[in-house]
């Protein structure tokens, strides 16, 4: 099978490419960019005129639900949404039902992933058994079963001694820790940012310190244990400062931010609208600007969707009792492009944050259009406007505050290992 993508503007940050030309794909792998390989005869040609051709997106934090949460969404519904979003690789957080803490569950996920067909789904194994934060999971077995990293999702680790040991053990097996910093006690079952808006609406609130203290502790332990740590879904200014200092100091850490944190603040919340209920909570304009600067200055190297589809019931109730999270795969690209349009980052940076950089975090040979790499490609029209409505939306979860809005930028084709998995 040979496939050629013509006339597109090819942006491949890992290889420093930004030019109009053709991409050649043979047997599911990138054969060449720009120069036609000898004897190449395309079976399929995609015309990408006025479109951008880039590596398929790698999402560091996704929930596909299914199994015990199939009323919220299924692998089947969400992989279609992922493909429509240009995502070719994603990391499944371990707080599934049942929790990803044994090789058996990893096998079950691999089976579900295989049935769904695409994209590439990697499981993040639980750091502790049942994510209860008290006993170490069988991390080596999880790694051997295929887990790409370990983490405790949004669940707390009971104390720092257990976290230290878990990190030492993970480091022994060269496992990456994906850590969402949040001090459970300081979080105090809050559902909104501790600021003027939560005060006005009487909402139980979460201070920045819940994040920054947990982050600072984990940074100390990263140095002590030598564990590789990736910090997920940062939400505030002081987290960006702390990561910047740690990197300057020489710690091998990385960080991502969920796309909605780069656009929304506490002030955007319509009163008690559960679509805005996310964890970590939407914070202030100042935090948002720092997160954007962190991205521009590479302190934060990746953008994730933090996709969390919900059933309608999960979001119907008084704000504090609704479940947190947004369905956010399909708004990932248009919201990234909005950052570019607002001059927060360059287009090349935006694409790198969704491909080359997360690939580096996961130590994957992907996220680039390098000859020999799996032909995971995203082709999008940066000018195409579309409305977020039931006609265009693929995810089973419609829990997005962008519902009804017109967004700019849409994926026209997604290729996974050379196979077209999405075509608009």
């Amino acid at each position, binding site marked *: 099978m040979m496939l050629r993508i013509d006339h597109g503007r090819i942006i491949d940050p890992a290889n420093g490419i930004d030019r109009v030309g053709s991409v050649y794909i043979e047997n599911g792998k990138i054969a060449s960019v720009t120069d036609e390989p000898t004897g190449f005869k395309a079976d399929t040609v995609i015309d990408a005129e006025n479109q951008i051709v880039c590596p398929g997106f790698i999402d560091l934090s996704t929930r596909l639900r299914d199994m015990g949460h199939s009323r919220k969404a299924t692998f089947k519904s969400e992989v279609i949404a992922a493909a429509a979003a240009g995502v070719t690789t994603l990391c499944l957080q371990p707080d599934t039902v049942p929790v990803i803490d044994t090789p058996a569950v990893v096998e079950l996920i691999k089976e579900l992933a295989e049935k769904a067909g695409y994209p590439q789904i990697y499981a993040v194994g639980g750091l502790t058994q049942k994510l209860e934060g008290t006993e170490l999971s069988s991390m080596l077995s999880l790694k051997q079963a295929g887990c790409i990293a370990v983490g405790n999702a949004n669940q707390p680790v009971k104390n720092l001694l257990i976290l230290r040991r878990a990190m030492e053990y993970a480091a022994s097996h060269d496992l990456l820790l994906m850590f969402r910093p949040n001090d459970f006690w300081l979080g105090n079952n809050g559902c909104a940012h501790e600021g003027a808006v939560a*005060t006005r609406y009487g*909402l139980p609130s979460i201070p920045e310190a819940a994040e920054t203290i947990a982050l600072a502790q984990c940074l100390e332990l990263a140095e002590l244990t030598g564990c590789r740590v990736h910090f997920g879904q940062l939400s505030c200014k002081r987290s960006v400062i702390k990561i910047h200092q740690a990197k300057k100091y020489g710690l091998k850490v990385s960080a991502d931010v969920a796309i909605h944190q780069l656009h929304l603040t506490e002030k955007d919340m319509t009163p008690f609208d559960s679509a805005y209920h996310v964890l970590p909570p939407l914070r202030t304009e100042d935090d948002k600007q720092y997160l954007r600067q962190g991205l521009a200055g590479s302190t934060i190297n990746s953008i994730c969707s933090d996709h969390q589809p919900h059933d309608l019931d999960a979001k119907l109730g008084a704000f504090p009792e609704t479940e947190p999270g947004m369905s956010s795969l399909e708004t990932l690209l248009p919201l990234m492009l909005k950052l570019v349009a607002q001059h927060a980052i360059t287009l090349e940076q935006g694409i790198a944050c969704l491909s080359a950089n997360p690939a580096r975090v996961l130590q994957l040979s992907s996220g680039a259009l390098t000859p020999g790499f799996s032909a995971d490609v995203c082709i999008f029209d940066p000018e195409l406007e579309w409305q977020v409505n039931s006609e265009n939306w693929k995810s089973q979860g419609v829990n997005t505050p962008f519902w009804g809005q017109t967004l700019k930028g849409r994926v026209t084709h997604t290729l996974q290992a050379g196979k077209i998995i999405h075509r608009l």
Partner: protein
Amino acid sequence: MTDNLQLNAEGKLKHFLTIEGLSKSLLTEILDTAESFAGMSEHQVKKVPLLRGKTIVNLFFENSTRTRTTFELAATRLSADVINMNIATSATSKGESLLDTIRNLESMFVDMFVVRHALSGAAHFIAQQTAPHISVINAGDGQHAHPTQAMLDMFTIRQIKKDFSNLRVAIIGDILHSRVARSEIQALNTLGAAEVRVIAPKTLLPAHVESLGVTVSHNLTEGLKDIDVVMMLRLQKERMSSALLPSESEYFKCFGLTEEKLKIAKPDAIVMHPGPINRGVEIDSKVADGPQSVILKQVSNGIAVRMAVMAMAMQAALAPGRSGGIHTVPGDRHAGSLPANGIHTIPGDKSGVA
């Protein structure tokens, strides 16, 4: 973020969920309407037929005696049929969702929900979800709002002090967890009080409390200077177990209102409390029962204010052409002083009372 959800197309109060977003003239309208009901309680026949044929459901997901009783009395005096639902011990404890409870009651053709719930935003949620002809009155949601309590306090203040513009009001105690405090602050600021001061230790103040439009003091002795109205808040016992305060006695020592401390405020200062009071914890009995206390006046004013809000909301909820649903009383001598919304009462005129 204005709350248009509360108003109908004509800008009339359809749901009463929060003070926020309501104009000074609307709050004044509530006070004026309440005034017309206020004298009624002392009459032998305490009913007007304004809400005859209407069904009001008191939907209390949290226990309450005083608030529920005054709402019930208010509804009864407006001639409505009242159903009390104590949900804290019924359906939701069987796993029924808030929405299902509402849907079920809706199917019984009710006209108004009076809602109390432990979570902030519950009344908003119900107002958003319920059928368009139903009015929702917030009788306290989580830490968010308790607008009828605020209005009955405004009513009491206006009765005594006449005007808000020169008033300095101190709110003392657990501001952090208090829906009453939030609504009082908004009402006082909307009605143009000169100053709203909150007095509490930092553990009982929410972050960025100044953003609510208040000045802050952590010291009762200093904070009471020049104060015209002292509003005490109830201190819940669980604040001690959650490490917000060391002990009741230390709290009383620092923030308890005694006769001696009250002397620091203006000599004609009034003392208020939304109840139920903890004697010897936030307030000394001598003050609670003393000459400056208006605590029991607040309770009786609660009925008139709730009658006013219910009558106004029911009127606004009726679709145009259905306004005949509210009965006007012939021979109303006070019509001129009442809002032109078809709600008329006739204090002192027994002939028109059903």
